[in-house]
């Protein structure tokens, strides 16, 4: 069942999943796990900011758009203001041009429409040049 999916464990990439939906949290966590990427999960933008304030840092952040307390656009903006240079990929079901534009302008490096799959995640890693040869 595992197939020829590359394992990036040796590359020591880390990621943060930011999503308020439990199903998405579980799926995105597993997708990253499958690629050997150690990852943490938080439930909204404020928690994403807090985790960075506590000193944690990640190579990749998968950022949902619609979340309570602090949404993805606000969180992305805030993280960039804090000087966080991690690659941030927006992952959302919203795909209207205006919404995507606003999200990108907040400081995203890449954007993928949900649902996230292994192919889309590999594509994100490729686009963001996080695909390290092992």
């Amino acid at each position, binding site marked *: 069942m595992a*197939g020829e999916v590359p394992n990036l464990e040796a590359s020591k990439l880390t990621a943060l999943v930011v999503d308020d*939906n439990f*199903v998405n949290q579980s*799926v995105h966590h*597993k997708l990253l796990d499958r690629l050997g990427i150690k990852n943490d999960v938080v439930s909204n933008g404020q928690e994403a900011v807090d985790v960075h304030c506590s000193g944690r840092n990640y190579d990749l952040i998968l950022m949902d758009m*619609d979340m309570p307390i602090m949404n993805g656009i606000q969180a992305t903006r805030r993280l960039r203001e804090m000087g966080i240079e991690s690659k941030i990929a927006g992952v959302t079901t919203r795909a209207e041009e205006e919404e995507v534009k606003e999200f990108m302008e907040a400081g995203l490096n890449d954007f993928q429409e949900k*649902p996230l799959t292994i192919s889309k995640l590999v594509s994100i890693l490729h686009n963001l040049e996080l695909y390290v040869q092992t």
Partner: protein
Amino acid sequence: MQRQVALIKQSLFDQKIIIRTQMEKYMQGYLDEQFVELEELQDDANPNFVEEVATLYFKDSARLISNIEQALERGSFDFNRLDNYMHQFKGSSTSIGASKVKTECTMFREYCRVGNAEGCLRTFKQLKKEHATLRKKLEQYFQASK
């Protein structure tokens, strides 16, 4: 790099054909490609991953259905609130590949957008029906897969 990506895609495609055949036997259009993607994530470390995700989905969707029912029972339609709930419902349904439920979510949101209360009620009734059928089918599917 490109060769690695091509290898991944080919392998995923081959696996998908096997999984999809089994899935279609039971699910008859209730689930889409995304469910196959989830099945492919299942491995020895997490042999029940898909069933666990399905359990999460039904727990989450039960909560949302209850919230929407309460909002509809109030009589005064807060279309923004209803749309919010349905956006969450659609998100979960998309992630698990629940295609028929997702379609009803989309239709409900359209009715919210134009402020059509009757359309919302009608669609919600259908959505609950599809959701209940999906639940039953998945139970059978997981039982048969053991």
